[in-house]
């Protein structure tokens, strides 16, 4: 294989034995961009394939975090104080310098996350962002009219007595929601509780499932 360097190439990147997560993620992104530019494939085709499996990455980790917070008050306290550190306790982490904050839903406050500029998303806990999260309509409308967006687009009726707070994730700081534990779950184990936590409930556009209901 040739190792031709283009003349304007800046300093070469040092090659550790194991590439950093950040570099590999960048390489995949670069590969996709080049193939799309060459007309080998379309973003749509790649999106469609990735979507088939989008539920098989990530949200289960966020679900694990939430179920632990529901059953372990000390962990919950640590999670709300420093989500990155609490997630690291469970072996969940992301790229360097990426801070995560968990915001807790209560009887009086409901939280929703968005990335107003692009698609910043706490992927270590939530996996891949769903397509609508990256789309302009959600990104702009949920800031202007969160209550209406939740009701009209997600069939989530937030009582008028509850305040809604919308949080803007950035590359530096990414939010996820700690939803309220559903009623009637006192007897469930942590593993069973984790089954109730959906991706949408971690974004704040849905509620956790109730015991006995099935996953979409």
């Amino acid at each position, binding site marked *: 294989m040739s190792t031709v360097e283009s003349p304007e190439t800046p300093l070469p990147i040092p090659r550790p034995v194991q590439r950093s997560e950040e570099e590999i993620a960048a390489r995949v992104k670069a590969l996709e961009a080049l193939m799309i530019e060459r007309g080998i494939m379309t973003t749509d085709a790649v999106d469609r394939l990735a979507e088939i499996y989008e539920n098989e990455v990530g949200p289960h980790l966020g679900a694990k975090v939430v179920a632990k917070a529901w059953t372990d008050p000390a962990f919950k306290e640590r999670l709300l104080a420093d989500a990155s550190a609490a997630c690291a306790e469970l072996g969940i982490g992301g790229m360097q310098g990426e801070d995560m904050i968990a915001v807790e839903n209560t009887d*009086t406050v409901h939280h929703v996350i968005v990335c107003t500029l692009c698609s910043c998303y706490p992927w270590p806990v939530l996996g891949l962002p769903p397509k609508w999260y990256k789309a302009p309509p959600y990104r702009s409308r949920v800031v202007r009219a969160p209550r209406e967006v939740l009701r009209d687009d997600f069939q989530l009726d937030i009582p008028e007595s509850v305040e809604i707070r919308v949080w803007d994730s950035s590359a530096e700081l990414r939010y996820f929601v700690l939803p309220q534990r559903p009623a009637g779950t006192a007897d469930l184990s942590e593993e069973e509780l984790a089954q109730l936590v959906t991706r949408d409930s971690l974004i704040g556009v849905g509620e956790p499932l109730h015991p006995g209901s099935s996953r979409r």
Partner: protein
Amino acid sequence: MTAMDDREAARRRVEHLLLELPHQEQIRPADGEVAFQTAWEIRAFALGVAAHQSGQYDWPQFQQALIAAIRSWEDAGTGEEWRYYDRWLEALQTLLAERGVLDPAALDERTRAVLRTPRNAHHQRARREPVAVDAARIDRSPPVP
């Protein structure tokens, strides 16, 4: 729902391809485990299948490239952590370079560009206050904490 049916059909087509690949336990892990650990893995996976579906290579060629990538990783014995999708990505790059549709130097250059981008991107500043608040519309007069 037809969107769901389409997705099911697409999934069956992909599953059919996956059956041909080595390390089935990595592709279809035991119940309760997921096949992908990170977002880039699923993206790399989708690229490999998409390139095949657009006619860049026959699936057996990908299968052979993946087997070869895994073998050379085993032979090298660098102590590098075993990750299926590292090898998948390597197989994909090798195959596309062999077919002349990917210039490895161009990929390196673009990777560096991607790595540089976040530094200049405008969405770096952490926002520590809500970007919007829709206040409660009925005052239930909750006790002040």
